[in-house]
Each structure stands twice: as C-alpha cells, then as structure tokens.
C-alpha cells in the first residue's frame, strides 16, 4: 500500500513537473520572441509612435514600439478563436509599430498570472479576452497603478468600468435578434423549431437563445419541438436531431447556435432523407460564419448563418491610436459590426471576406 502511494505521488510529481516544464518553456519562448522583437525594433524604429498619451499610456517614446501584452483563450478552442488569434497576430506586428507578447489559457487563474507577468514586464497595453468574468479586479487595479492601459476584447468582465479603457465585444442579443427576424421574414405558416443550444450560461448561448425564446413565447405559430444543449458539439447535435426524427415529430426549422452543431443536425437529416436548405423542407440556421459553413450556404444546403465577428484587432488598434494621440474615447463599450447571411443572397466574395 505504502509503495503504491509513493508511486502515485512520484507519478503526480512527474506529471506536474512535465506540465511546469511545458509552461516555463513557453514563457522562455515568449521571452525570446520579445527580445528578438526588441532588438529588431531598435534597429528598425521606422514608424515613430505618436505622442504618448497622458494618463494611461506609459512611456512609449518616439521611435519605440508600443508594447502590448495579449492574453487570449487557447486558439485550438474553436475556428472562431483561431481566426481571432490570427487576426491579432497579423495586426500587432513590428511593421504596424507594435511589440506584442502573447499568452494563452482557457483557465482564469493562469490568465491572471500571465497578466501579472505582463505588468511586471511593463507593457504599455494589456489586451484581455478573459476566460471567466470574475476575479479580475485586483490585477486590473495593479495594471492601472502601473500606468498600463487595459483593453478588453471579445469578452466582458465583472469589474468597474474605470479599470479599463475600452471593451470591444459582440452583441450576442443582437445576433439572436437578427437571426430571429430573418426567420420571421421567411413567412412560414407554422414554425416547428429544433433549437440546439451551446454550452449553457455562455454569453453566446444566452444571447442567441434569448431572442428565440422571446419570439416563441409571443407568437402562437412558433413552437419549439425540442430545446436541448449540444454544448457546441456536432456529435451531440446529431444525436439530438436523430432522436427527434426517431420519435416521428414534425419540424421545419433547425436553429443551431453554432455551425458545428448545425452540421451535426444536417448529418442526421441526410441519414433520414429529409431535405434541407433553400426551398426545401427544413430551414437550417447556424452561427459563426465558418468558411465551410458559408460554402454550404452558397450551395443552398443551409439557409442562414449569423456572424460572430472575430476580427477585433483593427478596433483595438483604433483605440490604441486614439489614446496615443491623446484623444478622448467616446464610448467604453464598442460593439462589433455583425451581419447575417442568407443563402439566397450570399456571394463567393462574402465567403472569402467573412469566412473564418
């Protein structure tokens, strides 16, 4: 027994050491990258940053790059996150006058640790997509005391508005409303909807569910055949739709809160030979505008896809430029422009431009 405990402990230590090894090597990499960038910056220094902002902006003197620390969720999380990360990486380059360091985690505590490290490194701006809404007050206070400007992107947090310069977010309620309005315009006699939800409690789920729930409660000819969470998971969505098909209930709309789940639902329909898409039996709705999903729209297999805009870097850049120029920021919360695509009107250019 004793031996076994010892072995377990040893194994746990090894595992922990392994993990620690990973994270430290990652920081080393980041540090190396930062150094390299700094060196290059000294030599290049072509684009002098505009005058340093008075209050928040720290010493970004002429000729120096603006140092930003970016804390994001893991790019592997979803296609959306991958596109978001790629967009940030493309924007915050030396050519654009930035010296960026990145930290990724899906865990709040690891993100907070990364934020503290960035504060110690005296970055000029801290860009944050928080994994969790709470627990950020003290670290953001530290950032403010150190004269670091904090900009939130993609996700909001529960903290005083004074602690950050701006928050750049999607309006999920509006995404839901746009989609529901579109569905209403289709003028069906009766709406029998299979509603497949995302992870319960997430902002995207709440916004996209809220609009549909409101409409179903208000209109008599709108019914939910089933309302289930598939947790953003296509396999689960497939099983949920399969179970509705097996039970023989009639339906004519699938409202899936992301593209993956819509794909799963469509796979179940294909199996049962239920036609879907433009002018077919079942209307397919998805969100997020993945490139492959927009191609399904283009082919007429799906009907609608709502955008959830991952291209936030230009908005962040604008805010930083404004602060650096000493301009007042007019609004704390900046809402991203988002559109919804109809399979009847989508073009190949849209797929290229908006697909992620």
């Amino acid at each position: 027994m004793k031996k076994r405990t010892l072995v377990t402990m040893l194994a746990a230590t090894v595992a922990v050491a392994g993990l620690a090894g990973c994270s430290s090597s990652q920081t080393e990499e980041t540090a190396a990258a930062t150094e390299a960038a700094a060196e290059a910056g000294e030599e290049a220094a072509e684009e002098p940053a505009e005058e340093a902002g008075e209050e928040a902006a720290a010493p970004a003197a002429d000729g120096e790059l603006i140092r930003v620390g970016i804390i994001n969720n893991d790019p592997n999380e979803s296609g959306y996150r991958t596109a978001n990360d790629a967009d940030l990486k493309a924007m915050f380059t030396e050519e654009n006058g930035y010296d960026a360091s990145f930290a990724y985690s899906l865990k709040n505590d690891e993100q907070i640790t990364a934020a503290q490290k960035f504060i110690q490194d005296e970055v000029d701006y801290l860009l944050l997509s928080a994994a969790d809404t709470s627990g950020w007050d003290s670290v953001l206070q530290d950032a403010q005391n150190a004269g670091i400007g904090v900009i939130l992107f993609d996700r909001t947090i529960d903290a005083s508005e004074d602690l950050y310069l701006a928050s750049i977010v999607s309006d999920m309620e509006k995404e839901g409303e746009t989609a529901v309005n579109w569905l209403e315009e289709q003028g069906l006699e009766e709406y029998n909807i299979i509603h497949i939800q995302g992870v319960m409690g997430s902002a995207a789920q709440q916004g996209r569910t809220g609009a549909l729930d409101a409409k179903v409660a208000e209109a008599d000819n709108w019914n939910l055949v089933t309302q289930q969470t598939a947790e953003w998971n296509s396999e689960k969505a497939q099983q949920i739709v399969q179970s509705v098909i097996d039970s023989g209930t009639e339906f004519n709309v699938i409202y899936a809160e992301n593209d993956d789940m819509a794909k799963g639902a469509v796979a179940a329909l294909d199996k049962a030979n239920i036609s879907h898409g433009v002018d077919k039996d079942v209307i397919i709705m998805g969100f997020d505008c993945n490139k492959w999903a927009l191609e399904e729209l283009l082919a007429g297999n799906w009907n609608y896809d709502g955008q959830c805009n991952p291209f936030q870097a230009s908005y962040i850049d604008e805010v930083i430029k404004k602060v650096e120029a000493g301009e007042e920021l007019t609004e704390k919360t900046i809402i991203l422009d988002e559109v919804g695509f109809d399979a009847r009107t989508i073009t190949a250019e849209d797929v290229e431009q908006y697909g992620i």
Partner: protein
Amino acid sequence: MTEKKRAAASGGMAGLFRNQIFIPIAALLLLAAFNLIVDPSFFKITLGTNSEGYSVLTGNLMTILDYGSEVAILAIGMTLVTAASGGQDISVGATVAIAGSVILRILVGLGGDGTLQAPIIVAFLAACVVSMLFGAFNGVLVAIFKIQPMVATLILYTAGRSIAAWINNNELPIVTDKTFTYFGGFIPGLPVPTPFFLAVVCVVITMLVLKFTNLGLYTQAVGINASSSRLNGLNPTFIKWLSFVILGLCVAVVGLIKTSRLSTINYSVIAKDIEMDAILAVALGGNALSGGKFNIPASILGAYVIQFLTTTLYKFQVSSDALPAYKAVVVVLLVVISAPAVKEKMAALSKKMKTQKEVG
C-alpha cells in the same frame, strides 16, 4: 429471455449475483420494459431511404446499434486493460481525436480541397499504428514504470487534444469524398448502420483471439496476482503493455467511425467523455474494476445498455446536460451492488431465506 431470468432466479439470489452477465441483461430488460410501458412506439423500426437514395432502417433501436457500437468497440479494449492492470485508461477520448486527425491529415493533406489524397485503408492503417503507439506509451508507463493507470493516462488525457490539433496544423479539413461517409453511416445496399458491422468484426476477432490463444487466461492471471503469475512463467509487464496496445487498436476503429460521421472532426470536443462511457460499460458488465476476472460479452452488452439509456433519455426530452447525472445514478447503483459488504449481506439474506423455506 424471461425464462432465462426465471432460471437464474431459481438459483437463488447468490447465484444471481455470481452470474456476471446478469447485471447488463437486467438493466437492458428494465429499460426495455420501461419503454414498452410508457411508449411502445420506441421500438418502431421503419425502412426508408436516405438522401443518397439507399434504403436504410431507422428508428430508436437502430440509433442504439449505431452509437452504442462506438462504446462497445472501446469496451473490448477497456475490459482487457482493466483486467490486466487493475486500472482504466482515461485518455481514450483524446486518442480518438489523435486517430481522427491522422486519418484526416492523410486523406486530405495540408490545405487540401477535400478530395482524397490517399486510399482510406492507408489512412486507417496509419491511424492504427499511431494510436497503437500512443497505447504502447501508456502501456510502458503502466507496465514498466508501474505508474497507476489513471495517473499515467492523465498525461495523454491532458495533452492528446493539443497533439491532435497540431497534427492538422489547427485546421479542420473536411473530406468531400462520399465513400468516406460509409464507415459512420451506411454502406450502399446494407440497411444497418456500418458501425454495428465494425463492432461485430471487432468482437468476432477478439473472441477468436481469446479462444485460440491464452491471452484471456494470462490477462486474468496477471490481473489477479501479477507476482504469482510471474512465478508461473508469465510476463506480466508484456501482458499489461499488450492490453494497452489492443485498446489503441480499438481507439483507431472508433476514430474512423467518428471522423466518418461528419467527414471532419473538432479536436476539442470529439469523443468527449467517451472514456467515461467505456469505463461505465466495463463496470456495467460486472467486471471488477480492480482487475482480474473479466467478461467481454458482458462489457459489450453494457455499452449498448448505456446507449439505450441515453437514447431513452433523449426520447423523453431530458435535458442533455442532465444525462451525466443519470449515468452517475447508474454508477452509484453498480458500485453499491458490487461492494463486498452488500454482496455478503445479500448472500447471507438468501441463505437465510433458503433455510426458512426448507423449515416451512
């Protein structure tokens, strides 16, 4: 079925509990009876055509055969791992993601347009090799370094999905070729879902191996007492290692099915928590989770029972995020029933009843 049950019942309570396959059969009958009473249309099977124009069978039972087969295939390997090492592999879901990624990578290539770059069989064999290698990695940790299986497989459980993402360079390629959908759907002309056939093939192969080799006996011996089996000339290290490699092979088959269902995968969510279902299947099959004696048919039956439960719950519109809670109830019941204290009590009770009967 009922006659068999009656026969078992006449053997007395103790005999009932000693018969391992009784637990999954009882669970299956319970679920079937429940559905029969509440809504007999649950068992309706219709012959329709799918969007490809082939005739296929659809209905809840077909769904159970379809999705239950994934867990059933995994349950084969998981039973062997459990029996040999006395622990479970929790990295199965992550390794399914890796196997699926390998298949996609080979079929589509990097930045491909979805047309097949290589024959499916090549991709599948490569996935087999890769997931057997990962199985071998787990096996080495467990058999040679004597790390507890759950802790050893925790490494891949944590890292596996990142490895899967890395294999495809964070892309999510989609296979456009229709023949690739056969493995998770239907083969033209056959109205029963392909995963079921794959499960049957796996089961038959396993049964033949167990019948014509001593693998079963050796695994059991190693699981019951590794050191005494070593003294009897067996190689416990090899047997344990081998069980993980076999599980790796099962994982590759499931990876093929999963990838084929949607012609693509999402690394972060594919086969999520499937390891828990596989372990539950082993437990439901009445196998001791601490190793030793095992019964593969019971585990496979257990796998279908789990899917039966899931499908039933979906049918009755139970919220899908509540499903794990229902499975938890099953686990609690199983653990309590198989606890030595309860077993003793039951045996004593049945003995008492018997003596009373004889007296009366």
